[in-house]
């Protein structure tokens, strides 16, 4: 039996026990999804979008449950300590909602924050509308649809605003070889929220995560993802946004952990005057691998998109960025900027940065640029000529390069937390603490 068959068998075996199994539409979609996955298999380097990041190795490799991982309560306590403003905390352990760890404060009327496993019962129609189908993306996300039983369900009624951050914490502890999560964020007109995904722990598991965002007219949604999983974890994730007229969506993706991390991030402007920010930072070392594939679809006029990605690639690691921007024929007066800059910190590190612009409209402003380079020798000498030793100077310049991305996070405590997370990854981080 190949590993693909194992996945199909696993899905058949789990399907009846997954949350939402009583919903006929969901059972059908899950069956379609596993059939699609069985048909496509894991993506290999033969597919253009997976050229640098084949998952074919998963076919040969049986996944084992991790033998040790941090205690979820302790992990969560450490995380919460970084945010003294409270916030709302929805916690999942090994892919399942952990109600005893979760703390949801008082929510404004019209705002729903719940686990997807609960929402299947409490808001099945809304979940159905936002859930997504199997046939619209790559095979790992079909597998996600077939196997996911939990995640966050967030609904913001017209004109509501979630003032405090909503933290979604996904802790990989012991007891599962794979986990599949789906987060649904449905923002009605004029609503506003900032949602943070924290991915921690995870041992050597495979985790798939799909986050779907629907931003109605003039809604403002900020999504921050901080991936700090164990160095053996495999993290494959998709963020799918749909934006209506005048809406604003920001995606910040900070990818620091995991052996292999893949992020597919996509937004589509379905109305005029949409704005988006794609802001990303990745750090990989050792033999780790990170891949961001992004797509911004300017389908309507007067849209503005800003995309800034930076990578720190060390050791034998590899960082991949492929950023596609499509400006449809109708999307006149589009204003799009995309940049991806990589800093190679070792001779064997490798970075691929590929911008792809497809422009069908004629009245547009589009700029893009991609670089792969080393630390600026002029800056290094300038610091040394002021008495700062070379090691410290290199660390300082490395941090400063990455910090530009972090400075775009508007929320103070979150920005500080992200800085600390970055410094913990970098040699000499403790010495640079006074930067904070």
């Amino acid at each position, binding site marked *: 039996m190949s590993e693909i068959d194992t996945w199909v068998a696993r899905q058949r075996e789990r399907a009846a026990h997954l949350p939402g199994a009583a919903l006929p539409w969901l059972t059908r979609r899950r069956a379609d999804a596993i059939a699609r996955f069985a048909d496509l298999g894991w993506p290999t380097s033969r597919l253009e979008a997976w050229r640098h990041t084949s998952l074919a190795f998963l076919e040969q490799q049986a996944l084992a449950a991790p033998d040790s991982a941090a205690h979820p309560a302790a992990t969560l306590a450490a995380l919460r300590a970084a945010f003294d403003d409270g916030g709302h905390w929805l916690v999942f352990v090994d892919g399942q909602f952990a109600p005893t760890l979760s703390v949801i404060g008082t929510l404004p009327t019209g705002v729903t924050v719940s686990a997807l496993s609960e929402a299947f019962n409490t808001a099945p129609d809304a979940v159905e509308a936002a859930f997504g189908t199997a046939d619209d993306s790559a095979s790992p996300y079909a597998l996600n649809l077939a196997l996911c039983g939990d995640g966050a369900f967030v609904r913001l009624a017209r004109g509501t605003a979630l003032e405090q951050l909503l933290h979604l914490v996904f802790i990989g502890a012991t007891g599962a070889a794979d986990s599949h999560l789906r987060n649904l964020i449905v923002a009605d007109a004029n609503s506003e929220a900032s949602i943070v995904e924290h991915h921690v722990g995870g041992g050597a598991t495979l985790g798939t995560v799909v986050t779907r965002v629907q931003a109605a007219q003039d809604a403002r949604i900020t999504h921050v993802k901080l991936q700090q999983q164990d160095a053996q974890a495999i993290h494959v994730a998709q963020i799918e946004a749909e934006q209506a007229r005048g809406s604003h969506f920001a995606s910040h993706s900070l990818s620091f952990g995991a052996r292999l991390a893949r992020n597919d991030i996509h937004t589509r402007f379905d109305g005029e005057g949409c704005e988006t920010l794609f802001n990303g930072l990745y750090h990989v070392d050792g033999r780790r691998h990170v891949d961001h594939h992004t797509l911004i679809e300017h389908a309507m006029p007067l849209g503005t998109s800003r995309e800034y990605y930076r990578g720190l690639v060390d050791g034998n690691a590899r960082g991949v960025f492929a950023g596609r921007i499509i400006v449809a024929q109708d999307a006149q007066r589009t204003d799009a900027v995309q940049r991806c800059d990589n800093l190679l910190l070792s001779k064997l590190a490798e970075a691929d940065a590929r911008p792809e612009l497809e422009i069908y409209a004629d009245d547009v402003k589009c700029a893009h640029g991609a670089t792969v380079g080393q630390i600026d020798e002029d800056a290094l000498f*300038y610091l040394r000529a002021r008495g*700062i030793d*070379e090691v410290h100077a290199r660390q300082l*310049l490395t941090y400063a390069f*990455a*910090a530009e991305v972090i400075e775009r996070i508007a929320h103070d405590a979150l920005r500080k937390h992200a800085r600390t997370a970055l410094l913990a990854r970098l040699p000499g981080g403790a010495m640079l603490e006074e930067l904070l």
Partner: protein
Amino acid sequence: MLKINNLHAAVDGKAILKGLNLEVGSGEVHAIMGPNGSGKSTLAQVLAGRDTFTVTDGSVDWDGTDLLALPAEERARAGLFLAFQYPVEIPGVSNAYFLKAAVNAVRRHRGLPEYDAMDFLARVKAEMKAVGMKEEFLYRSVNEGFSGGEKKRNEVLQMALLEPRLAVLDETDSGLDIDALKIVAEGVNRLRSPERSMIVITHYQRLLDYIVPDKVHVLSQGRIVRSGGRELALELEEHGYGWIDAEGKATKTAAGARP
């Protein structure tokens, strides 16, 4: 006392300094003038320890220390300061952090207590006022988006904070209008002291109207070809560098003709 003896330096195999001799006594201000490509900036960079330049011969003795044996950061800590011709922009590093890291690195080396945040701020604000820099420049990234004049003021500010024994000013006047030039020159003059030597590198004599040197040297093709008092600068102003180049070539030809 700085003694540069028969200094030869090359970049990418191309010889730039070809036997440069210079002595600068304590508290003296020496101007080095010369046409483009004569090796002025190379001299500044070699003294500061830039390793893109290879010293192929000669020595630099600085109060008994072999300057060339020290890496750049140790030269700085020991009291050598280079005011850059093109100060580098470092996005993401605040000027405040940079200045504090630099000052404390030097103070550690000198056995002085490091400044804490409060003491440092008080000191840096006082010095900024003296060079006419607004406080906001503390919180901006190092030199990022600074105008030419602001960058040069930032160099003079660093010099004031680091209190060097030897300051090398590499074309500190370039790109400055006359008002900015005056402010920068005042900053430099304020720092003149019997314990501090200065080498002022410039293409134009106008800077020397404001920073009056004890000696003037003319650099051509990697060597000091003339030394004199202030009047030498005025001579250069009047006649340009043409005659120096011609003289340099003539010397070379004569030397080459020798059996």
